[in-house]
């Protein structure tokens, strides 16, 4: 036998079905005629001979079918037949088709959207060749480690140690030189906000500083021009070049190829554009954000000098104490990660000892190589829980849609019992029937899946960003990097749902007894069992609905409570904007007078009621935490004594309507050279000066060399600082003139005018002081608060929609099963009524059945909801996951829906005409 010929004939039969069929017929015709001629030779008449020949050969259609079986194409015909049958059935009941496809589309669409979000936020890799070869360098050290100053994120480790990905630049240089176990080590810094001036217009952008071997290590080829090279990253200031992102190229340069060689100002320093990155490239920090520009580290002292500590030089490249640079390398063929880690660990120790003074007792950090294919994957920790909860909830929605379809199909199966019996009686195999029924459910689920995918693509743009506190919030829809995964996922869940909801009716169809099914009266023979399956599914449906409704209730209530939480300050009619005052041009000495000038000019703008400035805007997620020691108190080393602090302008309290209870607010006398003062809040007084008048007392704020002694001049009411969720905390305020690091201030403008009307004059006021400062993040205080509610709002919106969907599906399910049961029992009801049962009694009988089912489902759902509550407890605000009101409300809502859904069929049962019902049979 040869595979070749098998494939050839099979392919021919598939491709040229008509031609092949015609040939078979021609061949058979030749056979019949030849046979007839032989018979005629024996003396038979032509007609008789032909008839005889045909009879001997048998049916031509059967022969044709058998031939297709021989070629292995018969199953194609069968599937085609099943599909045609299924389509005809669906077309015959458009209402059913609409409900089925609609609920599946919603279920599958919701799953696809959440899955693609999960995929994008948690699993997307950096868009560079062989991202899986990248390793990120990390270190961990015990509590008494040598790393004291850090700019970057770190995680606490059990035992008081810490773990981080930030290294000092000198350590990077030594490690890179010593390294032999990774292909190369490149360095980068997470994107920073910068100001870009192009053709006289200044905008806020984000820039990632990278080492000279960054592009070669990542094997990244710019789509235009060149990448950053070693020669750009030599002496300080040696590489005034930037590579811009694809999006930035489109937005600011209209994708003009002439952009190469153009000079723009970055933080007021001229830089030349030498290349454009490919569209999907996100840098090495994350796979979600797209920094606008990439520049070499050699430009850091020029473009982005940091004045974190006045004693440090502007160049961080020679700073041996500050750990801030991120490192990544590519694995070398033949060197295992463990071996590379061991070798690099030794080299790190040497580098640390070579650059820092390490005391006898201090520990050097231990190096760890981790997966770098997703960069630092900065959102995984925060987002994985919410996304998993959403994935779980959407999974329940889909399960609900499945259960719904199973009940509907089951009801239809009852009506189709005779059809199945006829098929069985005519010799169809049970497997054949099973296949037919499954084809129908798969057809439904695939149509639903396709509709769901379209819905998901449409919804993708509507789903808001899940991250609100990043400088460049990754947009949600922009990068479907892994479209095939998403498509595969949708296809897989479509098929799975089809199998899940199709299995019940399929087994039901298999159970049909030929002998009984063909008799009309036998309708009740399987009734009990079938009724049970249907009821079990309805109970399941109600239970899942209960779960989703409770979830919706909890998240919506949570959002409502957050929205109504008293913040302790005025939120309306406040316009906010921020500035980034380049450290290249502003020192601590010049910053304060400039801000002062702007404050005055802003307050003088017509329409402005008052203007003030803050070190940290309120409810922005960021706050400044410091050590405090009130006068005359001493603390043990492990005792907590911190408070929140904010630097504010003198009109801060009046602008934000924060009441001064005792003493005074700041005034024009609190200048940089005046005695240092503070206003503390009530919680501060409660914690540090219980039963004492704090006015006139002093506190020591800050630790070590940076501490200052402050005199308390006033007490104000409590106000929220960084988030709505925070509890009242000890907080104090200082005049901004008396603190350092005011180079990114936020201005708050109290006005009754519309922001858009006022903005041009505000911009003029700021730019009359410095014409190169763009107004950043213009928003109202209300918008600032709304933004912090983004995640709770997404949860409330999505779960609310799921809850409504769940109620609708439960309604359909209960209606379906009740109506089905009434139609099955028309006969019985007719007899009961003929024997004198009252219509009201029938009504109650049907309704009580529906309520019982719902009640069991609700109780089961309560159990599920309590289990769910443990998972979502920390996503809620202001209420427990077993909030009795929400639970009771959801239960009542479901019962009401069940009664409403059961009412129509129950009413129909009560109006059954006994005569009609008995004749019906």
């Amino acid at each position, binding site marked *: *036998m*040869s595979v*070749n*010929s*098998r494939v050839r*004939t*099979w392919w021919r039969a598939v491709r040229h079905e008509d031609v092949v069929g015609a*040939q*078979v017929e*021609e*061949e*058979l015709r*030749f*056979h019949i*005629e*030849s*046979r007839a*001629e032989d018979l005629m030779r024996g003396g038979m008449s032509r007609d008789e001979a032909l008839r005889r020949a045909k009879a*001997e*050969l*048998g*049916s031509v259609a*059967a*022969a044709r079918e*058998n*031939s297709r*079986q*021989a*070629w*292995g194409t*018969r*199953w194609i015909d069968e599937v085609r037949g099943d599909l045609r049958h299924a389509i005809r059935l669906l077309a015959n009941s458009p209402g059913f088709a609409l409900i089925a496809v609609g609920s599946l589309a919603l279920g599958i669409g919701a799953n696809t959207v959440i899955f693609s979000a999960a995929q994008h936020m948690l699993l997307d890799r950096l868009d560079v060749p062989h991202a899986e070869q990248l390793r990120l360098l990390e270190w961990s050290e015990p509590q008494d480690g040598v790393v004291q100053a850090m700019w970057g994120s770190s995680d606490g480790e059990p035992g008081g140690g810490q773990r981080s990905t930030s290294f000092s630049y000198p350590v990077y240089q030594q490690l890179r030189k010593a390294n032999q176990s990774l292909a190369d080590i490149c360095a980068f810094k997470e994107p920073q906000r910068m100001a870009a001036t192009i053709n006289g217009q200044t905008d806020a952008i984000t820039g990632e500083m990278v080492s000279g071997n960054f592009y070669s290590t990542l094997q990244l080829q710019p789509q235009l021009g060149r990448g950053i090279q070693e020669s750009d990253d030599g002496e300080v200031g040696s590489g005034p070049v930037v590579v811009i992102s694809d999006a930035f190229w489109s937005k600011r340069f209209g994708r003009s190829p002439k952009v190469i060689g153009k000079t723009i100002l970055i933080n007021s320093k001229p830089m030349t554009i030498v290349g454009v990155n490919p569209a999907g490239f996100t840098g090495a920090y994350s796979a979600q954000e797209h920094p606008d520009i990439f520049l070499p580290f050699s430009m850091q002292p020029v473009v982005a000098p940091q004045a974190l500590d006045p004693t440090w030089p502007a160049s961080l490249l020679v700073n041996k104490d500050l750990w801030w640079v991120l490192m990544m390398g590519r694995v070398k063929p033949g060197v295992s990660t463990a071996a590379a880690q061991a070798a690099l660990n030794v080299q790190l120790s040497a580098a640390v000892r070579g650059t820092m003074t390490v005391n006898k007792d201090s520990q050097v950090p231990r190096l760890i190589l981790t997966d770098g294919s997703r960069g630092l994957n900065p959102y995984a920790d925060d987002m994985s829980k919410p996304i998993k909860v959403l994935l779980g909830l959407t999974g329940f929605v889909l399960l609900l849609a499945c259960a719904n379809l199973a009940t509907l199909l089951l009801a239809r199966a009852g009506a189709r019992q005779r059809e199945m019996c006829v098929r069985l009686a005519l010799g169809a*195999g049970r*497997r*054949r029937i099973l296949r037919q029924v499954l084809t129908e459910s798969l057809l439904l689920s695939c149509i639903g899946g396709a509709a769901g995918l379209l819905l998901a693509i449409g919804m993708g743009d509507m789903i808001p960003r899940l991250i609100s506190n990043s400088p460049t919030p990754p947009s949600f829809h922009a990068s479907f990097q892994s479209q095939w995964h998403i498509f595969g996922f949708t296809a897989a869940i479509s098929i799975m749902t089809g199998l899940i909801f199709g299995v019940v009716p399929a087994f039901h169809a298999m159970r049909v007894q030929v002998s009984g099914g063909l008799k009309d009266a036998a309708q009740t023979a399987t009734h009990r069992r079938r009724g049970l399956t249907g009821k079990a599914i309805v109970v399941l449906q109600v239970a899942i609905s209960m779960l989703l409704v409770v979830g919706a209730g909890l998240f919506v209530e949570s959002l409502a409570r957050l929205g109504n939480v008293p913040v302790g300050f005025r939120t309306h009619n406040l316009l906010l904007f921020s500035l980034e005052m380049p450290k290249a041009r502003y020192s601590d000495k010049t910053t304060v007078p400039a801000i002062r000038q702007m404050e005055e000019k802003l307050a003088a703008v017509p329409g402005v009621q008052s203007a003030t400035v803050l070190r940290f805007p309120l409810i922005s997620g960021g706050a400044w935490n410091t050590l405090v020691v009130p006068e005359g108190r001493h603390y043990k080393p492990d005792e907590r004594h911190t408070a929140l602090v904010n630097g504010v302008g003198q009109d801060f309290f009046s602008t934000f309507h924060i009441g001064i209870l005792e003493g005074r607010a700041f005034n024009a006398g609190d200048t940089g050279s005046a005695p240092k003062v503070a206003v503390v809040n009530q919680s501060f007084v409660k914690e540090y000066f219980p039963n004492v008048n704090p006015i006139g007392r002093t506190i020591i704020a800050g630790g070590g060399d940076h501490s200052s002694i402050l005199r308390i001049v006033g007490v104000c009411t409590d106000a929220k600082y960084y988030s709505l969720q925070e509890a009242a905390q000890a907080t104090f305020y200082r005049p901004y003139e008396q603190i350092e690091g005011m180079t990114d201030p936020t201005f708050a403008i109290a006005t009754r005018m519309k922001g858009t009307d006022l903005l041009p004059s505000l911009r003029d006021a700021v730019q009359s002081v410095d014409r190169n400062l763009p107004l950043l993040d213009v928003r109202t205080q209300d918008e600032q608060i709304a933004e912090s509610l983004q995640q709770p709002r997404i949860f409330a919106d999505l779960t609310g929609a799921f809850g409504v969907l769940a109620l609708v599906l439960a309604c359909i399910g209960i209606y379906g099963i009740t109506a089905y049961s009434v139609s099955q029992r028309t006969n019985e009801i007719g007899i009961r009524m003929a024997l004198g049962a009252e219509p009201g009694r029938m009504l109650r009988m049907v309704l009580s059945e529906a309520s019982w089912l719902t009640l069991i489902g609700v109780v089961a759902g309560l159990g599920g909801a309590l289990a769910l509550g443990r998972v979502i407890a920390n996503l809620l605000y202001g209420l427990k996951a077993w909030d009795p009101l929400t639970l009771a409300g959801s239960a009542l809502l479901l019962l009401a829906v069940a009664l409403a859904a059961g009412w129509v069929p129950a009413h129909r049962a009560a109006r059954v005409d006994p005569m009609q019902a008995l004749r019906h049979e």
Partner: protein
Amino acid sequence: MAKETPVDLLQGTLDMLVLKAVSLGPLHGYGVLLRIQQISQGRLEIQQGSLYPALYRLEHEGWIAGEWGQSENKRRARFYRLTAAGRRRLESETKKWVEFADVVGGILKTAPEEL
């Protein structure tokens, strides 16, 4: 995929007979029927309905090859000839059949005293 026609001994035999008939020279379907009847001297009645599926199956397996040609009465007919694979198949089938017949025949002819 479920084969709904039961596979029985006769079907295997029919395949073998068709291969043998075609091995003596290219034949069309009706010709195969006639040749088997002729060789068997009419002792073997072939179900005409099962002949064509058998031909298609053998062609599908690559043991015979079909080609359109002209019949003795000048009409278009499909002629089948044995392929090289078919010849090997026929030989092995023949060998198996002879062995089988030998064994079964031996058993059936066994007289009681021989045990």
